[in-house]
Every structure is written in C-alpha cells, then in structure tokens.
C-alpha cells in the first residue's frame, strides 16, 4: 500500500515533466507543423539558436579552463578557508537570475569596476562578451563540482606512481589524473553547457542583444504571442536535446 502511494507520486512527477515537454513539442508538430518549418527558415531564429550554442560553448570553455584546475586543488589539497571557498563558488547556483544580472551589470557595465577600464578593448553590455560572462557566472559551478568529483575518484597513489616513474606533477596530471577523470569532466562540461544555454534572466539584463535563443523566444512571445514563439522553443529544445544525446 505504501509502495502504491509512492509509485503514484513518482507517476505524477514523471507525468508532470513528461507531459509538459511532450505536449508542447507534439502540439507544435501536430497542429502547426508549418510554423516549425517557418522557424527553421527564419534566419534570425537560426542565428539566435546558433549564438546560444556558440556562447554556451565559449562559457563552457572558460569554465573548463578556470574550473578544472580549481577542482583539482579542491580535490587534492587541504588549505585554510577551503570550505568557505567552496561555498562561495557554489553561490551562483542559488542566486536569483535577475539578481545575477544586476550584479553582473554593476561590475561589467560601462561604469563598472571591470567594464569601465576594459571599455576600449571589449564591451560587455549588449554584446556577445556579456552573454558569455553571464553564462559563465551561472554555469561554472556545474563543471567545477563534477570535475572535483572526478578528481576525487582517481586514486592519488596513481599520481605518486607516475611521479616515481619520472613524471613531474604536470605530466602526472596530464597523462594519468586527467584522462582517468575524463568521464566526469565530459559530464560536467555537458551540464555546464546546458546550463549556460538555458540561462535567460542574467543574459537579458547584461546583453539583450545580440539575441540568444531564450531571449528571442521571450521577445517573440511578448510581441507576437505564444503561437509565434513556441516553434522557436520547440526548435531550441530539440536541437539541444539532440546534442546531449549525441555527446553522452
């Protein structure tokens, strides 16, 4: 009897998630397939989706460059304040998205602490650099956490063995630890990329233009309504889910 109730809970939750996504996709395909075709032919739609994927990729690349060394240190070394550092690095996961947007705008805006001195070199406000920075802020913890788990799963004695065989620390890392953690690094990168693409709130505040997929969906929705924005949403989710399935 308890298990029956539990299975009921599971079914409701599963049904909720599944029906929400599949209803949107199926309804689009069944009742308005031509709208989907139109979206595919709309160059601004394709550009926005491509920009989502591309800036997501850049944000993931930056997360990887910064997050993998960070994760290695957190996995292997003990130092004062480690717990606090971990907590701070995790904050972006729980920060409301528009708050993140305001914070990023404050510092990367034209008069911001970072945006001001860099203004002549790179502009963040309403530029792709802003999109990438916003994505980086919200998605980096996903890669860092997964990479840390990966490094923790590699026996430090393997590194010791490599070093005794003549490998300096960086070679031991490159030839032993890194490849053995690669599965976690890949999973973390996919999660990071997916989270970057999914971001909306922080992105629109820092860089409404050039429009990424989620922004275009919102823009079409407010200006033209559900029926004009849904094809883009369906297209975006199909593209991203396809890429995940291929990468996994």
């Amino acid at each position: 009897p308890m298990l029956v109730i539990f299975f009921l809970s599971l079914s409701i939750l599963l049904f909720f998630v599944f029906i929400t996504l599949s209803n949107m996709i199926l309804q689009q395909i069944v009742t308005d397939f031509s709208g989907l075709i139109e979206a595919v032919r709309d160059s601004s739609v394709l550009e926005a989706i491509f920009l989502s994927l591309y800036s997501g990729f850049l944000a993931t690349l930056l997360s990887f460059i910064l997050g993998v060394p960070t994760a290695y240190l957190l996995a292997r070394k003990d130092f004062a304040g480690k717990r606090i550092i971990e907590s701070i690095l995790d904050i972006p996961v729980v920060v409301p998205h528009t708050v993140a947007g305001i914070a990023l705008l404050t510092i990367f805006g034209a008069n911001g602490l970072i945006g001001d001195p860099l203004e002549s070199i790179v502009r963040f406000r309403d530029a792709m650099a802003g999109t990438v920075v916003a994505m980086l802020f919200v998605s980096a913890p996903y890669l860092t956490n997964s990479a840390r788990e990966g490094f923790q799963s590699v026996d430090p004695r393997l590194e010791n063995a490599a070093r005794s065989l003549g490998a300096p620390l960086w070679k031991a890392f490159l030839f032993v630890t890194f490849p053995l953690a690669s599965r976690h690094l890949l999973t973390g990168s996919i999660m990071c990329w997916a989270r970057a693409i999914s971001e909306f709130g922080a992105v629109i505040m820092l860089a409404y233009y050039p429009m990424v997929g989620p922004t275009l969906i919102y823009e079409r929705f407010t200006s033209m309504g559900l029926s004009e924005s849904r094809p883009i949403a369906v297209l975006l989710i199909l593209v991203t889910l396809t890429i995940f399935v291929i990468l996994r």
Partner: protein
Amino acid sequence: MIEIKNLNRDWGDFSIKNLDLTIQNGEYFVLLGPTGAGKTLVLELIAGFHQPEKGYISFNGNNIDSLPPEKRNIGFVYQNYSLFPHMNVEQNIGFGARMRGIKNPKIRDMAEYLNISHILHRNPITLSGGEQQRVALARALIINPDILLLDEPLSALDPRTQEDTRKILKKVHEDTGVTVVHVTHDQTEARVLADRIGVMMDGGLMQVGTPGEIFNKPVNNKVADFVGVENVFKGIVTRSNNGMINLDVYGNNICAISNYEKGETVYGCLRPENVTISKTEFESSARNTFYATVVEMELMGVLLRVKLNMGKDFNINSLITRQSATELDLKPGDRVVVSFKAAAIHII
C-alpha cells in the same frame, strides 16, 4: 646509502617519531611491523611524496628532501599495484621511459625477464593479482632505479602466488643489486627475504638487525611478542619423492611434506607447541627425532619456552607446560630428544 636522521612526520592517522635508519646500497631491507605502525609513510617519505616535518633523508651523502619524487630515481610498488587502468600492460611498463624521453625502452626484455610478455597487450584490470604485481615490478624496474620501494607486495596475493612472487623478488635483487626497502607485517616474509630487518611499531623503530638477531634476540617483549611465534629454518632439499622431501638444515636431516625439487632452498615453519621433548628415544609416527641441547628456558605464564640447540646455529623453540619440565627434570645444558611430525612443518 640511505640515511634517515631524526625523521618526524604526521599524516592522517599515522605518525613517525624520531626515526633514525641507515640502509646500505644493495641491501634488501625489510620494514616489519603491525598495521598502523607508519611503515608505508616511511616509504612515501623516501619516495618524496611527503616532506619530513623534522629531520632529513639523504642518499649517498646528499640530502634529498628538496628533490621532487620524479628526480629521485626510485621505483615504487604499491600494495594495490596502482597500475594505470587506462593503459595496457606495455604502456604501463613503458610509462617511465616515456616520461624521461627515452626511445626504445627494452619493454620486451623486461617482460620476458618477469614472464609477462604474453600479457603485454592486456588491460591491467583483466589480470590476476600476481600478474598485476609483476607488471608493477616491471614498470618500476625498467627505469633502473637506485632504490626499489615495495609496499606490502605479497599481502594481497594467495599463498601459491606469494611463493612465486617471493622467488621473483629474490631473483630481481640478486640480478640487479638494487637497494630494496620492503614493507610487510608478515614475519615469515621478512625472514625469508631480508638481509636486515627493522621492526617498526607506533611510528618508531624498535630494533634493527639481521633476521637471526631479530628472531633470536628480540630486544624487548613487544618485539618478542610480534616476531616470536614460529620456528623458521632454512634448508636445502636433498631428496624429493612423491610429495615428501628431506631437508638439510645445518647437517640435520629433516623430513617434511612438499613438492620442492632436489637442490632448492626452502624455509620450514614449525609452531613451538608442536615440538615434543623427551629424555629417551622412542619409536613413533613423528618422523623427525633429533638430539639437542637445552640452551635456555623462559617462563611464559603456565608454559615454558625451551630454546634448543640442534647443532651449529640451528636453534628451535619448544613450548611445554611447567609440569612437563618438572617431570622431565629439564635444566639448561641437558641433552634431550626433540621430535616433531613431518606433517606439522609448513614449507614455503
């Protein structure tokens, strides 16, 4: 020569306190002690994976504390073998050469030497424990290390493979002359392999000496308790017939159960409670009967440990009750008959 001076280091649950130790070049040195004594930590300090908190380690007169592990030219074999699971056996063995930029390392020669050339293309996780151990050994030896550090190399293996691996370790040491530091909690292993033994307990060395010194003259009760359980003697097989062997041990002809071939050197283990003492000879199923001299008698609770000399340096302990000693009127210097059954000897 490895010189360790006043070494101190805490790490996790382990700690090393004021450890002094000198190991000669070419020596086979065994660090013997119970679990938790800090033996592996000593190896890791010699290898450079940890830094001493106090004291220093020098090699051939040079302090090596500031050398990183990769510059120390030390081979390290962990208890769990620590083979790289994402490389095959050949790549594992070749790793050291690759790191040092050596072209054409003699992987095949090394593999043949350790009898693993048939598994060069296998993945380490598909190998048996003994095979993995030989691969780990090959990987460490191919870099021609000055020092070979072995962390409980036999303890994860089944008895038969232990025997093979012990032979390989002996051969490697004889053939290469490498200085070996071998960590174990198994006294028989220490006895069989070591030139010298250091008994380590609670982070400190209790006694350092030859196996003879350690096992015959333990400096205190703790060492005696730890090493004093068995009689272990070395002998040469003089006859082997259908599972029975005859052993020459300092001129005594000892009969035991084993399949070793004539001419081989083996060790026999015999628990002191299985050694019977009498004043006169008698016929029984005990195949081994010898005259011996009582050297020493030590009271151990209700039992007496009687140390018997069977000629030359061949000493054997017997554990008998005080009552028996009284009835037999046993005194040091007495000439007695010692007997033990062939089936009671464990040959390794």
